[in-house]
């Protein structure tokens, strides 16, 4: 293989960049006479022109693939140059970048070559070289290959900080349509196994600290949103299940952007980035704010409001619970007020021990008053008009917000063109 390292790196980064997972947090590794450590807070090292952070060297081992998934750039039938890195080259690159503090660690994914087991072994070899030969203690995120042997999955978890396997599409039908070679069970199987191993490992480590950690930063997954016709309700309910049953650390959502045209794929969906953004907000509400999926979405409202964030939307449907007196409300109740987040709620709880808080104090504590003012009282006084009728309140909350957000979360191509033009633009055949 005589292709220059520079070109291979470019091609393999190109293939990996659609994986959104970027977290380098949640693991803590000390540097024991080698190089690197993992900081539990996670560290971003740079940001690309699409505003996403660069924290890990995100790269494919190879972009050859035996599968033919409709949404993927690396699909078998796509005419791109196929290259690969050897495990030793992956390790060398990672260390070279790490020593210069470009990256926080490695995110290693791959196309599937020969068989899932063979591919998984390649990944493990690269990570083992890093951990054992270079004594690298930095963060490693390893992709599991669907259908790989459970023993290999176990080995992967012992070497990596986080493992992940992508659900790809929210529904079984969607997967059958767009990724005919992957089955839902081949994805959920390893996910369940990893979860069991993590639980067992946690118990063992309570008995003895000598037991090596298994995937200390847990597991995550990713799904593509907007490539099939599922509703937000299906997606958010699925995420809730994943968090509850498999204790996933993160579910990532990737707005579908057609990189290749295919008759099975939809033409450009309407404001996909806005939808992705709202899904992430709902996801945060599930994980940190004590919300449940059925509170945010139900039969009547199957999709999230694109104009308002899901928490404000929920508050508007439950006007009977507001206004809330911030000097008396429980932490859990504070969390549900629009404009108050985890940090500001905690600060309120701390600060009010030293005396009653007034409305002026709240902005100092980090409360977003332009949203919160309609939902709170302080010492019995309210700042905004708490008794506005819901429709009026909605338009007030939207007022002034439209201007900036419209242009940002809309894709430049999504507005005026007809569908034919778009397909040809994306596939480059003008």
């Amino acid at each position, binding site marked *: 293989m005589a292709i220059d390292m520079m070109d291979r790196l470019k091609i393999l980064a190109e293939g990996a960049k659609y994986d959104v997972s970027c977290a380098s947090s949640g693991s803590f590794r000390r540097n024991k006479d080698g190089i690197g450590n993992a900081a539990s807070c996670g560290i971003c090292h740079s940001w690309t*022109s699409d505003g*996403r952070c660069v924290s890990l060297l995100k790269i494919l081992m190879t972009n050859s693939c035996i599968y033919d998934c409709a949404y993927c750039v690396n699909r078998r039938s796509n005419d791109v140059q196929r290259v690969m890195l050897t495990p030793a080259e992956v390790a060398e690159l990672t260390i070279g970048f790490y020593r*210069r*503090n470009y990256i926080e660690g490695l995110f290693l994914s791959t196309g599937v070559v020969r068989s899932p087991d063979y591919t998984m072994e390649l990944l493990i070899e690269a990570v083992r070289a890093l951990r054992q030969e270079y004594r690298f203690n930095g963060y490693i995120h390893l992709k599991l290959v669907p259908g790989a042997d459970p023993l290999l999955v176990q080995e992967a978890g012992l070497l990596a900080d986080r493992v992940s396997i992508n659900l790809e599409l929210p529904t079984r039908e969607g997967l059958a349509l767009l990724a005919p070679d992957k089955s839902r069970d081949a994805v959920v199987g390893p996910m369940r196994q990893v979860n069991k191993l993590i639980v067992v490992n946690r118990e063992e480590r309570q008995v003895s600290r000598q037991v090596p950690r298994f995937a200390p930063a847990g597991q995550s997954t990713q799904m593509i949103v907007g490539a099939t016709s599922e509703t937000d309700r299906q997606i958010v309910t699925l995420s809730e299940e994943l968090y509850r049953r498999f204790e996933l650390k993160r579910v990532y959502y990737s707005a579908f952007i057609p990189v290749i045209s295919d008759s099975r794929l939809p033409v450009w969906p309407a404001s996909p980035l806005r939808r992705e953004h709202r899904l992430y907000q709902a996801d945060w509400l599930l994980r940190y704010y004590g919300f449940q999926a059925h509170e945010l979405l139900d039969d009547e409202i199957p999709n999230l409001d694109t104009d308002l964030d899901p928490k404000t939307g929920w508050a508007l449907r439950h006007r009977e619970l507001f206004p809330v007196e911030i000097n008396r409300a429980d932490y859990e109740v504070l969390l549900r007020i629009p404009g108050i987040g985890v940090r500001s709620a905690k600060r309120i709880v701390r600060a009010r021990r*030293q005396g009653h808080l007034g409305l002026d104090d709240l902005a100092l504590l980090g409360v977003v008053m332009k949203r919160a003012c309609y939902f709170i009282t302080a010492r019995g006084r309210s700042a905004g008009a708490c008794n506005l009728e819901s429709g009026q309140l909605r338009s007030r909350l939207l007022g002034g917000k439209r201007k900036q957000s419209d242009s940002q979360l809309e894709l430049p191509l999504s507005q005026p063109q007809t569908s034919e033009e778009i397909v040809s633009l994306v596939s480059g055949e003008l």
Partner: protein
Amino acid sequence: MGGIYRYDGSFAGLLTLLARLLPDRILPDAIGVDPPQQQGLFTEVTTVETDQLLVEQFWEELSARLAPSCLKLVRLAFLADRAERELMICRYLLLAWETGKGIGNMLAHPHVAPLWKLSQQVGREAHRYLGFVRFQEVEGGFYYAGIAPDHRILSLIAPHFAARFRDQQWVIHDNTHGEGIIHDRHRRDWLILPMDVHAEPDLTPAEERFQALWRSYFSTLAIAERENLRLQQSKVPLKVRPWLVEFA
């Protein structure tokens, strides 16, 4: 009371000064390192010499009166590159002398909120620089990184890099404040010294190769359809870009 005070600019110096002022509940009109520009006719400038013994006693007293998180707040605020920081600390400690440990919760108090905000700025900048440092391998076997932070964050980031790159000889040079951390891998130790660099560092061939690889890797990462330059600029401000390999 009031008055204008001068100290040597070190944290110990400020503590000496505060140890003298606090028992008498004196709030100065100004505290500075350099002699004040304008001087009133009747105000006298008092210069306080650092007294190591007094500092130790005072630090013990501070530790007894304040929660660890409040001590950390004071330390972070001291590192801020902001002229009023000493006065803000002084006001904060005067309040602490009155209220005791309860000050840790008085987040909205007019003498607490500004100091707290300042310390957050310093802490955030220090965290950002854990990512924004770019080492260059220089002929002679060590790694050099230049940065230009707003605040004096070197002492906050040094332990992180010392743990992470303990087998490397490295230097992080703060160009704004003319200081640098030097890490010695044999003694496993680091120290902060005044520093000035005149010549361009002499890069090794491996360094140039990795820089080229990194630039080309970075340029492929963005998804063109999702371009959002405003978001990028809020995360990577223009002032840090000259120091980053991928932007320079």
